[in-house]
């Protein structure tokens, strides 16, 4: 079944704020095997000009995923998640996320289009602190394999 194109522009907000912690940053840095001290050592982070340890550039995917998940399970979107692969991902940073940040994500369905037999769904998440400071925008393009082909039947 094809995606419901009427949902272009629909917005999903984080159900609750996400608190960035030193422990989670360390866990994430360990998982990607990145030994950079600014992810683990507060003194190293301060020496680099930050107030606490910072998160790796792809860490915001954790925050963006919440909004993405709400879209993916939105029954009105009619998305078959078993046919989804990740096509593109990008981030635009105002600054890195850092320990102590409490952030929320506002995710918008920014594009839906067909490409051959697939459909491409683009979700754009603005991640900001609860104080209103923009930190990063994550743009996530999902490819729904065979979605357009099924729509023709």
């Amino acid at each position, binding site marked *: 079944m094809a995606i419901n194109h009427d949902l272009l522009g629909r917005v999903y907000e984080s159900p609750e704020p996400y608190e960035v912690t030193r422990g*989670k940053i360390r*866990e*994430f840095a*360990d*998982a*990607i*095997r*990145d030994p*950079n001290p*600014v*992810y683990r050592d507060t003194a190293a982070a301060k020496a*680099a*000009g*930050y107030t606490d340890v*910072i998160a*790796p*550039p*792809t860490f915001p*995917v*954790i925050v963006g*995923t919440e909004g993405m998940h709400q879209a993916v399970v939105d029954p009105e979107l009619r998305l078959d998640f*078993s046919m989804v*692969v*990740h*096509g*593109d*991902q*990008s*981030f*635009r*940073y105002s*600054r*890195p996320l850092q320990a102590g940040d409490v952030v929320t994500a506002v995710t918008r369905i920014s594009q839906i289009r067909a490409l051959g037999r697939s459909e491409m769904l683009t979700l754009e998440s603005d991640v900001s602190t609860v104080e209103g400071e923009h930190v990063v925008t994550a*743009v996530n393009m999902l490819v729904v394999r065979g979605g357009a082909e099924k729509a023709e039947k």
Partner: protein
Amino acid sequence: MTANVRYADVEVGTELPEQTYPVRRLDLVRYAGASGDFNEIHWNERVAKSVGLPDVIAHGMFTMAEAGRLVTDWVGDPGAVVEYGVRFSAPVVVPDDDNGAEIVVSGAVSEKRDDNQVVVAITARSGGAKVLARSSAVVRLA
């Protein structure tokens, strides 16, 4: 924020040192936990094959993180990254053995911009396939 690379010292074509990052099943399990992405195609061979994949594949975001290390290791300060975007052109297939797979990442400065910013074009390969294409990072140098 202090990047270790000076804007004046790079030019279009300056290459970043190529890096090879190993990826094994354990890495994918650990990344699943750290990221919260438990999609079974990243750790369950039976499920991966049932949806037409050759085997378990790495999370695209894991591959993106490894490729990003090429840039953050080069500049030293991960906070110097202004933009980072990738296109997933093929999956990183991770067999269930002691060696797993390798992600080989290369990059070169493709553009110098104002405000000490440069664009680094990034390519990643695994098992003979280009797994990231048309990917780039914008970084602010010292």
